[in-house]
């Protein structure tokens, strides 16, 4: 039975929640923890990653018929590394303080498993349109994940959101949350919360079914 080709819309929606790169697939954890002490660096990171993901997905999809199977990883890596260099240089030229703040985490996008897995799973097999939809969907999923962690950490750790002070300066903040241990604790709790919500939804969905049986 041939599997029907997924439509661009399906791919797009799939990337956001059902196959969220961070919460469901546990990919791209390094930036999720490292740059989420505040919203601004987190969103810059999402922008850079999305740029690389979209460009790499489009290129691999365009050349998908020419790829030799045993050389494909080499091609993916070359493509990703090129676009990461472009993103890194652009940040250094136009947003220098942010580029300094993100430091090595911009070049580390090269080894973000999320991007290479999208090239491998989706774009090297599908048309550019589907690949583009997939890349945008996954980027939005990544945005959602980073935004959630950064929101928790910045509000608890610094009392602000996107640099805007939310609670009075004199209010005690949980400095731990903007330190490395806080990143692990925040993501761990959010992962637990996501699983719990997932379980609850599944239980609700199966309840009437179980009742009728």
């Amino acid at each position: 039975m041939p599997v029907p080709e997924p439509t661009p819309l399906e791919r797009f929606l799939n990337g956001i929640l059902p196959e969220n790169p961070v919460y469901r697939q546990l990919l791209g954890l390094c930036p999720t923890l490292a740059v989420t002490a505040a919203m601004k660096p987190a969103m810059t990171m999402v922008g850079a990653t999305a740029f690389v993901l979209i460009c790499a997905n489009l290129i691999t999809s365009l050349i998908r018929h020419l790829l030799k199977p045993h050389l494909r990883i080499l091609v993916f890596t070359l493509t990703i590394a090129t676009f990461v260099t472009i993103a890194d240089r652009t940040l250094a030229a136009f947003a220098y303080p942010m580029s300094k703040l993100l430091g090595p985490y911009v070049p580390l996008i090269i080894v973000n498993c999320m991007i290479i897995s999208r090239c491998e799973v989706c774009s090297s097999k599908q048309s550019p349109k589907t690949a583009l939809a997939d890349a945008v969907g996954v980027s939005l999923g990544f945005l959602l994940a980073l935004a959630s962690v950064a929101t928790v950490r910045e509000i608890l750790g610094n009392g602000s959101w996107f640099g805007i002070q939310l609670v009075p300066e004199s209010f005690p903040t949980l400095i731990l949350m903007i330190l490395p241990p806080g990143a692990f604790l925040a993501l761990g709790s959010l992962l637990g919360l996501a699983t719990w919500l997932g379980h609850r939804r599944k239980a609700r969905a199966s309840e009437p079914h179980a009742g009728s049986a």
Partner: protein
Amino acid sequence: MSRLRDSYLGQGWLILLLAGAFGALLAAVHLKLSPRIEDNIQAEITREIPGLLLGAEVLEGASIKIEGDLVTVEPAVGEPRVLTIVEQPSEASALYRVAERDPGHLLGWVARGQDHGYADVIELLVGLTADTGRITGIYVLNQKETPALGDGIVRSDFRRHFVGIPTDRPLVVGADAAQSRYPIQALTGATVSSRSVCKIVNDTVALVKVEIAEEPEGSNARP
């Protein structure tokens, strides 16, 4: 035909082609952006130099323009001032000679120094008067000290302690400072960071003082 397909060239032509294309793309990006990146890196230091020598008050509401080694400071009130900043050869990470362009007199020196702090390396800019007799200010370029404790060294209320202190004797901090005329108040809970900053200032000042003293008199008169 099949031999060609099996050869390395037949296998790898796509990679070679891509490498060529990406190489050209990167070269274009590099040529276009690298002057801007260089400027950014340079400006990061140059921007802070006027504040170190003229005092933080002058810079309040002022705009700073950088063109090559000329820095124009336009304060909210009063005349704009144009400074020439020239990097000097030095044993310190960097040493800048700062002069007022129009009267052409030497305003002071700014040196860059670094050493281990509590968590990682701390990098500082230290401003000195023209005769290197007093510190005119310090600025923290890079640090990774503990948030909310050691990173207080970047705050202006800590850095203000250093302004105007004579350089004839090394700075001392905290408990060792009881007999000193110019003690530096250590940050609460961050004695190590405060001590490191003082050490960097002392080392840099000592190095630069010797170097400037060795320089021929004539160079001071240069505009």
